[in-house]
């Protein structure tokens, strides 16, 4: 069994646990829905500036809901001291990081897809026209979000105020992802082609590669007491 397949064993374990309790994804979805709904109350239909606000609403919902999921990511490992059992396994720490990263990515992506659907209904977005480019932006943003979030979730899990600490750690580092995702999806929602957001997409790709690599290298220190 290779490096990636062992990481998948960890992700699969997280998915089975989540399918059984539905605690993480449901709370993420509920929070995402609420953010989109509340913003919708405040935005007049047909307002000229509506298109300027839409991407911000979408990515605010994604980010806040995503953080809820990341907060829970390592809490399951604290119960019965499971993290110690995991660290005792004869695998490189990077396998453990990748396993948790895969799990977090799947949960965040699932939440993002449903939130996108809800958003498209409330804000009259022609989903057929924007589904592919927005899907690509969602995937790239999810990778960056989960790469950094998994690392910081591991750092903060043993702390008393972990929810606050995770948000404080994560938001500044996440600025490039949120900015690039909001700017590029703004172009798509305006009806421009995907190529018009090329630079922002390139920023997302570079961010993903750099932070995934850095997080793999730093994870060992994050879980060491």
């Amino acid at each position, binding site marked *: 069994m290779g490096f990636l397949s062992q990481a998948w064993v960890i992700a699969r374990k997280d998915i089975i646990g989540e399918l059984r309790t539905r605690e993480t994804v449901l709370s993420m979805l509920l929070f995402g829905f609420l953010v989109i709904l509340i913003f919708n109350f405040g935005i007049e239909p047909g307002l000229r500036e509506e298109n300027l606000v839409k991407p911000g609403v979408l990515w605010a919902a994604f980010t806040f809901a995503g953080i809820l999921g990341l907060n829970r990511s390592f809490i*399951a490992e604290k119960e019965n001291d499971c993290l110690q059992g995991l660290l005792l396994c004869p695998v490189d720490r990077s396998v453990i990081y990748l396993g948790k990263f895969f799990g977090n990515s799947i949960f965040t992506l699932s939440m993002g897809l449903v939130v996108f659907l809800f958003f498209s209904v409330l804000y009259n977005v022609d989903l057929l026209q924007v589904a592919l480019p927005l899907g690509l932006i969602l995937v790239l943003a999810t990778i960056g979000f989960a790469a950094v979030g998994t690392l910081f979730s591991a750092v903060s899990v043993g702390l008393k105020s972990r929810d606050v600490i995770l948000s404080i750690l994560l938001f500044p580092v996440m600025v490039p992802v949120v900015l690039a995702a909001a700017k590029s999806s703004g172009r798509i929602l305006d009806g421009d082609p995907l190529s018009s957001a090329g630079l922002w997409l390139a920023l997302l790709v570079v961010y993903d590669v750099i932070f995934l690599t850095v997080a793999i290298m730093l994870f060992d220190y994050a879980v060491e007491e």
Partner: protein
Amino acid sequence: MTGGDGSSAGEVSGGRQPAIRVRGLWKYFDHFPAIRGLDLELESGRFLTVFGPNGAGKTTLIRVLSTQIGPTQGEVEVGGCALPGQADRLRRRVGVISHNTYLYPNLTANENLTFFGRMYRVPDLDDRITALLEEVGLSGRRDDLVRTYSRGMQQRLSIARALLHDPDIMFLDEPYTGLDQHASRMLRDVLKTLHTGERTLVLTTHNLEQGLEMCDEVAIQVRGRLVFRENVATLDKAGFEQTYFDHVGKDFRWDS
């Protein structure tokens, strides 16, 4: 400090290859020394029980020996692997049973064992799980969620988890914590089967009766050091309680 036979408290008697060799181990948490210059040698295949009061550093010792945390200072060699450098190599050969079970409550017993078995790359995993669940008396609850298990059942499943990869060195850190008498007796029966002479075992406990029952050697740890070591064959079992309190002291304090 000495053992009952006059040897150094950490030394082992006999001529077999040591499974555990520790020299001058220190472990700090921030500025607090949980282990203070501890020495220990244990022959391969022997069963050592380490007694000590709460806060003596027993769990920290187990966590260092089992690669869960690194030493601050000193030489640690377990199963021929120098720690922390060769921790990855050692992990495949080590099993840990703790008062925490390391089991995922929202997975079934089978899913938990399958997960850990895959992480350890255990061959013929299904057969191995079936045999172990039979051994710990849980085959009838194989597909039940761990969160529905009693504390005693969870601890027995934890033994199955620790034995999945057939480790030759096992660390048992206060495994009786939170168990009622019936569950303790069942756990004791399972632990007896582990002491085959092929497997090296280290048990930590502050319960004298349970700790003395199965081991070959005893040690007493106080304030991060081993202060007593003796073979059970030559130990005055009846007088051990007094020996323990003589070493621990009635007014055990970390600042003394």
